[in-house]
């Protein structure tokens, strides 16, 4: 009843391209945001921050980035892990080289560095398409991780080959290092996730986003109607890498604190992000968050259930986890290949007509 518009009253393009055309949606969005900003930091504890909320937010940013590239521009990438590594190492080098620089700037700058690297690895996309491109982006994945492991300059010649985050504060509160309060961790990730989601939404509903989608749907046709494929594809690579780089920087500095390139940013992370995007829904901002939440929370849930409740031996639980995750992915693809976002859309359609569908 609440969830209803009485007809199409849009008379202008701005009306038509509203993010929340229904006012109920808009108020619900504000309400959720208010809960996330005000209520959650008050009740959050260490476990919830480290196992649930912070990883979900960080992975959401990475999924947003890949969704821009794959969902909106149609270029499949398996190099996400490598680009996250660029973000993380860029952030580390900036933080150690300029100790006075605020960490927010460090993170944004490392995103910009990643965007540059993304453009370089995006260049072949003008010639290579489809699966060939997907495999070609593996070059980025393996080359970048190798680079960070074999040149000690990147990890400041530390003996372990790891990079460890120095302590930094925002407005006097520590956000990195061992003395960080869970709410500070959570809030800085939330702020980045919110700002980037806002940016992604506004980019994708404008002319830039339309040119991406034209390229995705058919690049030759798009070229004929006047979309510059060079510009559109490289823009998508740059913006996507910017997001992924920020995700990598947050992953290293706020979430983990110390990483080693081949462990933290291996090929598995690339696949993980791709899963998030596909399960959440290609070409959907909400889908990126939903997919990230699903993929991050499922193992946590399974672990609690199998090891905690049923007290199985851990190795059997780990193997079962693989089996269940794999089976669920296949199940999802069979039942709803367009992802969670599409499920939400269908639910909304139902809700619109409820309770009198005819």
């Amino acid at each position, binding site marked *: 009843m609440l969830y209803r518009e009485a007809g199409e009253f849009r008379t202008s393009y701005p009306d038509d391209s509203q993010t929340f055309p229904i006012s109920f949606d808009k108020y619900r969005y504000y309400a959720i945001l208010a809960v996330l900003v005000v209520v959650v930091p008050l009740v959050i504890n260490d476990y919830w921050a480290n196992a649930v909320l912070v990883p979900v937010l960080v992975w959401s940013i990475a999924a947003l980035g890949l969704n821009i590239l794959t969902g909106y521009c149609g270029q*499949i990438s398996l190099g996400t892990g490598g680009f996250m590594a660029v973000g993380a190492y860029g952030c580390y080098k900036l933080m150690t080289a300029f100790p006075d620089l605020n960490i927010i700037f460090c993170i944004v700058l490392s995103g910009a560095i990643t965007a540059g690297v993304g453009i370089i690895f995006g260049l*072949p996309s003008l*010639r*290579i*398409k*489809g*699966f*060939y491109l*997907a*495999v*070609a982006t*593996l*070059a980025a*994945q*393996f*080359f970048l*991780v*190798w680079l960070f*492991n*074999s*040149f000690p300059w990147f990890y400041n010649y530390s003996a372990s080959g790891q990079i460890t985050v120095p302590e930094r504060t925002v407005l006097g509160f520590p956000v990195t290092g061992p003395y960080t309060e869970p709410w500070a961790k959570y809030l800085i990730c939330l702020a980045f996730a919110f700002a980037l989601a806002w940016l992604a939404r506004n980019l994708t509903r404008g002319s830039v986003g339309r040119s991406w989608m034209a390229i995705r749907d*058919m690049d*030759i*046709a798009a070229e*004929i109607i006047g979309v510059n494929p060079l510009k559109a594809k490289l823009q998508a690579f740059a913006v996507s890498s910017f997001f992924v780089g920020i995700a990598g920087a947050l992953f290293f500095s706020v979430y983990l604190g110390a990483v080693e390139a081949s462990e933290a940013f291996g*090929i598995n992370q690339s*696949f993980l992000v*791709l*899963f998030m995007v*596909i399960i959440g829904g290609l070409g959907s901002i909400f889908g990126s968050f939903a997919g990230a939440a699903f993929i991050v929370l499922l193992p946590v849930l399974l672990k609690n259930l199998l090891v905690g409740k049923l007290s*199985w*031996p851990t*190795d*059997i639980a*780990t*193997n*079962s*986890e*693989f*089996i*269940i*995750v*794999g*089976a*669920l*992915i*296949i199940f999802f*693809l*069979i039942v709803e*290949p367009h992802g969670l976002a599409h499920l939400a859309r269908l639910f909304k359609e139902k809700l619109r007509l409820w309770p009198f569908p005819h």
Partner: protein
Amino acid sequence: MIEQLLYAIEVSLNGLMTGILYSLVALGFVLIFKASGVFNYAQGIMVLFAALTLVGLQSGQVPFAHLINAIFGTHIYNFGWNLPAVAAIALSAVVMVVLAMAVEKFILKFLINQEPVILFMATIGLAYFLEGFGELMWGGEIKAIDLPLPVGISDTVERVTYDHFGYGFFIDRLDVAAACVAAVLVLSLVLFFQYSKIGRALRAVADDHQAALSVGISLRYIWVVIWSIAGIVGLAAGIMWGAKSGVQFSLSLIALKALPVLMLGGFTSIPGAILGGIIIGVGEKLFDFFMNPVIGGATENWFAYVLALVFLVFRPQGLFGEKIIERV
């Protein structure tokens, strides 16, 4: 200088052998991609699964022993028999055929007409599933394959080359055996594709799904056949790699190495897979040999991908791939 040159030749010969092993894995990819347009990421796991099954069957392990023991509190591990190698290989082949049937029945059947990326994701899901399933079934420890395969350095080659060049080449006999197996496999596959009735149906499906359906070829049957063949090729690759480096999880990572091989050769070409494997194998060994003093080791990790990337920029369909024609 001549020493250096001979050493480089030896390195590239070894690379050649490794490359042939890569192409054994790549072959499975090509078969499935040709017949169903599915980019089967799970091929690497299928290699591992086949090798695990072979070892398990041969040494008489009880499948799911760990799980059964954990649930029922029993202590069973072994049936206490040792199957002869031929029987174990045949049984593993049967298991791979059953796996192919299951894949068709539970996954592919439902995904007809979906976009390629969805099918690709489904095979990644399958890879996760098989990874957990294989370890649950046979246990996660590193196993050795106990088959009468030639191993060790070939003395004959070393002696002959020493007499001729004054420099003994080290060639692993296992690599030579693998090369022979690969040659036999490729030859029989080509013959099978060209001259058997099923082979003709397979080529028809590869050309055009709808046209093949309309002349009465059962797509689902063809898929089972092609996944079975890919499984058996995977078994061969699993035996060779397993004998080389032990049956362990890292075996499935070779699948990733097979991808640039495929890209170089073209996704749809069997000779391309072989040639691509050889180029990658020789290339990465030689590159490591020459560049090791300059930029450090472990370049094998990425060289294959970068080579394929650079190559594709100039020839987007690979060496032997069908020319990509795009229409609006």
